[in-house]
């Protein structure tokens, strides 16, 4: 058992966690933040992507105990009074069908836009498809997901 002090969606949280608790289980079971999904549970699908210290990671492949002092943002934490531009873009461009993969798509989308903007690189449709390597949509809605991220990139 480890005691961790972390910031989740801007709020300080102090909790005891088992040493083998995965971040995704900590978020869903202990904090009841069920927006982060478990799809494959083998680090392939990306439905569980959250940001740790500003970087996209797979919460199903991260130990909660290793995150003492970290800042975690989940899909519940990206809206600030109104929807995040990435969320609005997915809405406007029909970037989801069943919606299961969407939390991970939103978090990976925000991460890639932030990285490309920081480097001054253009986030082309090709680059988005490459960046989405680790996010799987089984409705096969990639075309509109790519459009959504491009749309959001122009507004972020």
């Amino acid at each position: 058992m480890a005691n961790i002090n972390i910031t989740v969606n801007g709020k300080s949280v102090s909790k005891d966690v088992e040493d083998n608790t995965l971040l995704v289980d900590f978020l869903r079971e202990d904090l009841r933040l069920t927006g982060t999904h478990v799809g494959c549970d083998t680090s392939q699908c990306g439905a569980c992507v959250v940001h740790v210290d500003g970087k996209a990671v797979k919460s199903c492949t991260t130990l909660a105990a290793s995150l003492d002092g970290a800042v975690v943002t989940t899909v519940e934490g990206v809206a600030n009074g109104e929807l995040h531009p990435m969320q609005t873009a997915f809405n406007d461009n029909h970037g989801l069908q069943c919606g299961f993969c969407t939390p991970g798509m939103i978090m990976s989308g925000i991460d890639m836009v932030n990285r490309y903007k920081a480097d001054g690189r253009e986030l082309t449709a090709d680059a988005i498809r490459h960046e989405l390597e680790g996010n799987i949509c089984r409705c096969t809605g990639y075309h509109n997901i790519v459009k959504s991220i491009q749309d959001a990139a122009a507004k972020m």
Partner: protein
Amino acid sequence: MYSTKYHNPASIDAATAALSSGEEAKVLAGGQTLLPTMKQHLAEPSDLVDIRGIAGMADISANGATLTIGAAATHASVADNADVQSLCPALAGLAAHIGDPAVRHMGTIGGSMANNDPAADYPAAALAMNATIVTNSREIAADDFFDGLFATNLEDGEIITAIRFETGAKCGYAKFPNPASRYAMVGVFVAQTGGGVRVAVTGAGDDGVFRHAGLEAALSADWSEGAVAGVDISPGGLLSDFHGDSAYRANLIGVMAKRAVAAS
């Protein structure tokens, strides 16, 4: 996942003490292979010793043509590092194509080297450039480090602290990734080093990463794609599996070698 005890040491000494405290303690450097393996009940470490809290463990530095990459440096940090990009763009490019962006934010070079997956990318770069694996107790040449599938010559309780690459050589890397896992079906790293031309192949050998003498001889005489075309690449000793048989992989070695030379 089976239960385990998590340690977060602040020094190498504390890490080695934690490693020797458990029945079957393992180093945790990024966990992008170890944690999935534990989730599938294929590994059951009594203790996990996280080395990411040790000061300097993720540092990347350049001294002349020598690059020293800390064991806990993530694939993303290697790919984005200005010194790696200028001294050895092939290495930066290799790191930029491991797994996916989220995996690259967590996975580390030290973890990849210690795990020595037969389809991992870094072992090819380390062997082709004859990198030096720096541990808490000694320095090991890549030639002496790899020891077959998922095996290395690390001793019990020994911790990789950094990987040192002598650059300045002309280098290129090309891989044919498995479309699902992104691991190399075949990856070829070609390098002109102080010790001559070296060519390392990952993803294909049934005993893990290996050097290809035929390609090395051909590229020593003539560093060109055309030189690769004349090399006989035997399927002997190559993996045959669900994804491709040994003859297919033998052909891919030639194709990837050409692309690696073209990219150098």
